[in-house]
Each structure stands twice: as structure tokens, then as C-alpha cells.
């Protein structure tokens, strides 16, 4: 049973999705428990897998027993085991959270929603655990197609945003596929490890076509992760999607694409090729500096809560791309750790935005007015998330910044360090603006006020929404305080790739 754990991570949500599609329309009540069961199974399987990786080293799992280069291979090391846990846990938390929102926002499409939801999770998890470059493309498209469907379920404006996303997403995926095509022509293989071995063995790394493949794949992935000049699809898509959808997409999609970028750079092309032979670090880091700063500044200009958070994601993508391209061990550790911490930070603030929207029906940031009195627990969780995004110890955001800045100083990229610090400060402004509105109200009283207004009644959101939020906030603290074991796993992975 335990040998099959890698397959379970993917297959549990996948088959449940199909089952829900078949019976969910008739028995609506069955959807939610099934979703929870399958995602819990998936979480357990991914945790088991991580422990096995820690015990046995890199796992190779052949689906159906067919060995590569013919069969499908799952290759799991420290990196993707961690990311798989992040995905399944985020999906589970959002799954619990979805219960009420789905009934409220898309009452006539419950089973369709959950089918797509689980397929999306399966696609994301599959991208992370697969060891095959072409399979990755297929799973990428599965997750993209389902996310188009999920976003389009939103209100009016979501449809246009979805259409933009379809165009951009398809272009991105095609770039990726073209890149993989070039690699296939040169090496005759689609298995990631095999490609790398072929490239090294046949001395292909100097070839122009391999460089073109690298560029194609990188650009494709950049489009999909909304790296700054290619980000335009993201803000509207995440801001207008149904709340559950954006709570699931925002933490995961961009982070999984970062993972794909790291996997391609380190495993397929190799450290030697990406950082030493190509040596494009300077350009990419400047691009990420621009991404960080412009993402933060654009976030400042927003009055729509979720749109503001969406622009923050663009800045955070800049953190991670920059961190990866620093070509430095600490920078890479920081970027990978940031994948984990940022997934939960984003989840936390998006869950909060969802609760605010559910409670007030208002998208504007002024909707949080008076929330400290009305929903103290919700605000507490939000403050943890906000502090984490600002980077205040001991939340996990502090430690990812710690490593990223260390990487920046180590490799001498001071522009990156300054961008990180500036973006922390802008985040502080952003979040204290919200905290101020919640604390003082949108228009506080003039003068030296001892206003004794009627205490507004406490009305927290229902437990099915509140508990996931509180869990996420607790996770943020836990990941920060006990970051040592996580960092050890990441360090082992990074050292194994040969990056110094």
C-alpha cells in the first residue's frame, strides 16, 4: 500500500472528480464529503511520500509498472514532495472553506464546481510529481482548462477575464510545448532525467536549438506564472473569480509554475548550463526587481481588496524568480522556502478577502470597516497573514526574506536586496491601510475623541469559513517557527543539484 503513495496523491482527487461528475448531479449532498475524503487521502499520501523520500532518497515510481523511457514515471525528491504537500493541504483547507460559498455563489453548479476543483488539484499535483516533460504539459493543460472553467463561473466581468486568461494561458502552454519539442528532436527523449543525461552525454549543451528550447520553456512558464511584463491576465482573473476559486488558484498556480521553472532549470538543463553557460542572471534579476517594485506599486493603487492582493502575487512572483536566478545557494533555498510560505500567506489573505466579501457583499477595501469589533478572530488571522507578507518575525515570511536577502548579498545583487526591502515597506503600507480602516473606520472622528459609540455586535463568519482561516494563520506561524526541518530538506535538494 505504502509503495503506491505517490500514485494516491494524484489518483485520489482524479477518480473522485470523475465519480462526482457521474453521480454528483443527482446527489448533490454527496459532493462535499467526497471532496474532503479524497483530499484528506491525498494529504496523507503526500505526507507518507515525504517521509519515504526522507528515508530512502529520491523515489521513482512507474505508473502501471512501465519503466521509462516508454512508461510514465513519477520522480519525487525533497523538492516536489514538499510542494505536493503544500498543494494538497491548501486544497483541503480551501475545500472545507468552499462549503458555504459554493452553495451561495454557484448553487446550480455544485457538482460541476467540485469536479473541476478536484481535476484542478489533480492537475497541479501531477505537474509537481511527474518526471516526464510532456506529461507535465498535459497536466498543465488539465489544470489550466479546469481553472478557466472555475473562473468563468464568477459574475459578469469574470467571463472577459477568463477569455484573456485562455488566450494568454494557451500561448504560454504552446511556448512550453515548443520548447519540449525542440528538446525531443535533439535528444529523442521526454523523460526529464533522460533528457538531461542525453544532453550531457551527447555534448548538446552548446547547441543553438537547446538554447531556443530553454528560452521557449522559460517564456512559456513565465507567462503562466505572471512574471511582470507577462502578468496582465492575472489580476482580473483572480479578482472576479468566485471566492473559493481565487482562494485555490491564487496560492497554487503561480507557485507550481515557479516549481516547474526550478525543475526545468536545475534538473533538465542543469545548474552548469543555466547559470554558468548562459549567464543571464543579471538581466533576469533586474526584470524581477522591476516585477517586485511595479507589482507593489500597482497594488498600492487598487481599491478593490482582492485585486490589490492579486497585484501582490505579481510582486511575490518577482521575489521567487529573482531568488532562483541569483544562482546562489541561499537564494535558491529562499525561493523554494518562499514557494511554501507564500502559498500559505496568499491563502490566508485570500480567505480573509473571501470572508469579508461574504459578510458585506462589498469588494472595496472599505468593507473591512469596524471588523476588529465585529470579527476579532478573523482579523487576528488576517494580521498574522499581513505580518507574514510584510516579513515580521516569527512568521514564515520573515524567514523566506531572510534567505532571499542573504542570497542577494552573497551574490552581490544589491538591487535585489533593496527591492525586497522596499517591497516589504510597501506591503507594510498596504496592510496597515487595511488595518487602519478596520480599526479606525473609514472616516474617524475629529478631534480628541473619547467616542463611546454602541459596541457593534460580534458576528464572526460561520465555523466552516473561520476555522480554515485560523488554521492557515496557525500554519504561517508554525512554518516560521519550525522552519529548520523544512530548510534542511530544501538544502539537501539544492546541494544535490550542485549549486553553490
Amino acid at each position: 500500500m505504502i509503495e503506491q503513495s505517490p500514485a494516491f496523491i494524484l489518483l485520489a482527487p482524479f477518480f473522485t472528480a470523475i465519480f462526482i461528475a457521474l453521480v454528483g448531479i443527482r446527489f448533490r449532498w454527496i459532493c462535499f464529503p467526497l471532496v474532503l475524503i479524497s483530499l484528506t487521502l491525498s494529504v496523507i499520501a503526500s505526507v507518507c511520500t515525504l517521509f519515504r523520500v526522507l528515508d530512502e532518497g529520491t523515489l521513482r515510481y512507474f505508473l502501471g509498472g512501465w519503466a521509462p523511457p516508454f512508461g510514465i514515471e513519477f520522480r519525487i525528491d525533497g523538492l516536489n514532495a514538499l510542494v505536493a504537500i503544500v498543494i494538497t493541504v491548501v486544497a483541503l483547507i480551501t475545500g472545507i472553506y468552499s462549503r458555504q460559498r459554493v452553495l451561495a455563489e454557484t448553487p446550480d453548479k455544485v457538482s460541476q464546481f467540485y469536479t473541476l476543483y478536484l481535476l484542478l488539484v489533480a492537475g497541479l499535483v501531477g505537474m509537481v510529481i511527474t518526471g516526464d516533460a510532456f506529461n507535465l504539459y498535459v497536466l498543465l493543460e488539465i489544470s489550466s482548462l479546469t481553472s478557466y472553467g472555475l473562473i468563468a463561473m464568477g459574475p459578469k466581468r469574470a467571463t472577459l477575464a477568463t477569455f484573456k486568461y485562455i488566450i494568454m494561458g494557451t500561448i504560454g502552454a504552446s511556448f512550453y510545448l515548443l520548447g519540449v519539442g525542440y528538446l525531443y528532436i535533439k535528444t529523442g527523449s521526454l523523460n526529464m532525467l533522460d533528457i538531461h543525461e542525453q544532453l550531457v552525454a551527447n555534448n548538446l549543451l552548446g547547441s543553438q536549438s537547446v538554447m531556443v528550447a530553454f528560452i521557449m520553456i522559460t517564456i512559456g512558464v513565465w507567462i503562466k506564472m505572471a512574471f511582470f511584463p507577462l502578468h496582465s491576465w492575472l489580476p482580473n482573473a483572480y479578482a472576479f473569480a468566485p471566492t473559493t476559486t481565487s482562494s485555490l488558484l491564487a496560492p497554487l498556480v503561480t507557485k507550481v509554475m515557479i516549481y516547474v521553472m526550478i525543475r526545468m532549470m536545475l534538473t533538465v538543463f542543469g545548474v552548469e548550463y543555466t547559470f554558468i553557460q548562459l549567464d543571464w542572471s543579471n538581466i533576469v534579476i533586474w526584470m524581477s526587481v522591476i516585477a517586485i517594485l511595479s507589482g507593489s506599486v500597482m497594488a498600492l493603487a487598487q481599491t478593490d481588496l482582492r485585486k490589490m492582493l492579486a497585484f501582490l502575487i505579481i510582486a511575490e512572483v518577482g521575489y521567487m524568480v529573482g531568488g532562483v536566478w541569483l544562482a546562489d545557494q541561499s537564494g535558491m533555498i529562499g525561493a523554494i522556502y518562499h514557494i511554501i510560505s507564500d502559498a500559505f500567506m496568499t491563502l490566508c489573505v485570500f480567505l480573509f478577502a473571501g470572508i469579508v466579501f461574504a459578510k458585506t457583499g462589498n469588494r472595496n477595501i472599505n468593507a473591512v470597516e469596524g471588523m476588529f469589533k465585529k470579527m476579532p478572530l478573523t482579523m487576528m488571522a488576517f494580521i498574522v497573514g499581513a505580518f507574514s507578507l510584510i516579513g515580521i518575525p516569527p512568521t514564515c515570511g520573515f524567514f523566506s526574506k531572510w534567505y532571499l536577502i542573504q542570497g542577494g548579498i552573497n551574490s552581490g545583487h544589491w538591487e535585489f536586496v533593496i527591492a525586497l526591502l522596499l517591497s516589504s515597506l510597501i506591503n507594510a503600507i498596504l496592510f496597515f491601510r487595511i488595518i487602519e480602516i478596520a480599526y479606525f473606520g473609514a472616516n474617524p472622528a475629529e478631534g480628541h475623541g473619547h467616542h463611546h459609540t454602541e459596541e457593534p455586535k460580534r458576528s464572526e463568519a460561520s465555523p466552516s469559513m473561520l476555522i480554515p482561516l485560523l488554521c492557515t494563520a496557525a500554519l504561517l506561524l508554525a512554518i516560521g517557527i519550525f522552519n529548520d526541518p523544512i530548510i534542511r530538506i530544501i538544502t539537501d535538494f539544492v546541494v544535490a543539484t550542485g549549486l553553490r
Partner: protein
Amino acid sequence: MTPTTLTSFTPVLASLVSLLAVLPIVYFGRKPNLREGFTFLAGFIKLGLVLSMLPIILAGNTIEYTLWEIVPNLSIAFRVDSFGMIFALVASSLWIVTSLYSVGYMRGLKEHSQTRFYSFFAISLSATIGVAFSANLLTLYLFYEMLSLATYPLVTHHQDKEARTGGRTYLTYLLSTSIGFVLPALIFIFLKTGSSMDFTSGGFLSGHIGASEALVLLLLFTFGFAKAGLMPFHSWLPGAMVAPTPVSALLHAVAVVKVGAFCIIRVYTGVFGIDFLSNLDLGTMITWIAAFTIITSSLIALTQDNLKRRLAFSTVGQLAYIILGVALLTPYGLTGSMMHIAMHAFGKITLFFCAGAIFQATGKKYISEMVGIGKRMPITMIAFFIGSMSVVGLPFAGGFWSKFYLLWGTVSDGQHFMLIVLLISSLLNAAYFFPIVFKAFFCKPEESLFENKIQEAHPCAVIALSLTALGSIFLLSIRI
């Protein structure tokens, strides 16, 4: 007896006890007496824990406790030495007095959200003791940030427009300096030394960095700990005076600003090392900045009519004394600085208590409205007089000793210009304090704005301010 290092959980507990007290405080939010009972209970336990470590420290030992390794090679660790002990003693004893005063002040004015007030007060104290007992830079930074954020709801307690502006200034200055200056400096040091960044008596930077890097780091730390209010990063302090007076008293005369000064002294002595700094001759520049701050802030204080603002600018000047003392890089200067932390704390908290008591009893905030107030609130104004003597440094209160050491430090180092700065500033201090007292007692009857009926503030407040005033006098008898 040789100095030994003991391992004990007590310092951690001393820091945590007030954090734990938040739970009963919030739980009993609807029963004020019980709620305040827990505040006092936590205060006395805290003081008891700190006192229990005193004999060990006096015997020349240190106490250490490592919680856990949070980043490879870096841990959250506590360490108690004599300097941290002084600061912890001052902070924990004044917390109890301030709690007493808060009860009087907050109930007297029927303030809203008192539960929140007491909770965040307790959290702030945890952070303060945490700073005092930090063993390394990372732990120090952690508690420093915690203090900035925990005091924000206190500063903005009134939740009106003025409070919002004050709170914005407060956080902008404190967060931008700590994230923008201290954090990169911290990471840079960690990278350069690769060590655990433990404070050691001779510093650990020497030999790892060059002169120019040392200069930049020194500036980053000196301005980064903006809680110390060195110009040009001082204006959060007058801005934060929108807070209720107990907050201004404890946090802005004692905990917050002294934490800034404490951090700077810790970094100078424990990270750079006095010898390293004097070899590179980096102290002079800091003394000039401090001297500038002292004179400028005293002059600004002269022009302020709002009593609390005048006290705030006086604090800016007095903090710069502490920085000046340590930047002299002489043993006497350093002793003077450390003593000044304690002496100024008692003096300034008395002055703030008096300002609050006057506001609570009469609603007056401006000095021009306080002519003849001595007839109505004699105890308060006598305490005010004692407090101002201590701050000016006259030989009737504790402030005398610290100023004495500071002056001695300048003389022994041959820094005659700094000596003159200190003397002029003492004159200015006298010039902005004593007229208030003088006009309160000795005005012509027709000038007096108050009737000749004694009517003091809430008794809790009066007891508290008398205690701190007596404390100021008592400190005179302490000899180091």
C-alpha cells in the same frame, strides 16, 4: 569566585509571564477588578522573577537559556547580564507602578476598550523584558519588532483622526528604519561572520569587516533603532503623544525609547566592541550627531506649550545623552549611559504621570493654562519638581549620578566641546522645566487660574506618581 554561566529557564519565564497574563485579562474583560488583579499579579511575578536572578548576577555570573535553533547556526536565546538586569529591573518595577496609575487614569476618564489597553500593555512588557534578556541580535530584533507592533494599538487608543495620524507617523518611522536599516545590517553581519551573533563583551565583528563596512553598519544600527529617537528620526516621539498618558509614560519615557537606547548600547558594546570602534575612531561622528540632537531638541522643547510635547522633546534630548555617553567609548561614559537609562526612567515617568494627573483632574494640556496649579494639586506639582530635578541633574535626585558620570566621561576623554554641550543642555533643561513649577506655586493671586481648594487626581494616580518621585530620590543613594 570565577564568573560562571548558569542555564535556567527563568529569563524566558520572566519575559513570557505578562504574555500569558493576556489570556485571563481578555477572559475577564467584563470584570474590571479581576482583570486589573491579573495585571498586578503578572507584574509582581515578573518583578519577583527578575529579582530572583539578581543575586546571581551581582555575584558576577550570567544566566543563559537557548530556546531552539530557528535558522541553522542561529537560535532564539536568552542571556542575563548586569546591563540587561538593570534595564529589566527598571522596566518591571515601573510596570507595576504604571499599572496602578493606569487604573486611576483610565477609570477616572472612563476610557473605552480598557481590556484591549491592558492586554497590549502586557504584551509590550513581554517584548521589553525580551529585549533586555536577548542573547543575540536575531532575538533582539524579534522582540524589537514585537514591541513596535504591540504598542501601535496603545498609541492609537483613542481611534480618532489625530490618533490615526500619530499612529501612522509612529509606524512609518519605526518599521521603515527597522526593516530598511537593521534587517539588512543583521543579515550582512550574519553572512560575514557566520557566527551565532551572540553578544560578547569585546564584540565579535573585529577582524571580519573593514573600516568602511563598519562605518556603514554603525550608521545603519544607530539610525535603524529609531526608538532611540536620534535626529533626524525623532519625530515619531512627539507624534506618539496622542496616546493616553500611562502609555506615554511607560512606553515613551521608559520601555520603547529606552529599548532603542538599550539596543544601541548592546550593539556598540556586544557586536562592534568598544575597542574596535575606538581603533577605527567611529565614536566621534556619533557624538556629534548626538550633541546636535541634544541642543536642538532642548531648544524645540522650550517653545512647546503642550506639556506632553515638551516632555517628548525633552526625552529626545535625554536619549541623545545616553547615545553620547556610549559613543564617547570610555568606561565612565558607558557607566553614565547605563545609569542614565534607569535614572531618566524614574524622573521622566514621574513627569508624565504628573502631566496625566493634571489632565485627568482639570482637563488642562497646555502649560500656559497651568499658572497657579500648585495650590490645587500640591502633591502632583511637588512630584513634578522632583522629577524635573532628576532630569536636569541637580544633586537632589538620581539623575545627578548619571550626569556626573557622563560629564566625567567627557572630561577624562578630553572632549571639552561635549562637556560644554552637556552643561548648556542642562541649563536649557532647567529653563524649560522650572518655570512651570515656579508659576504653579509662586504666582500672584490674581494671576492664578485655580481656586485655592486642594483637589488632586484619582488616588491611584497620586500614589503612583509619589512612588516614582520617591524612587527618584532614593536612587541618589545607590552607588555603582
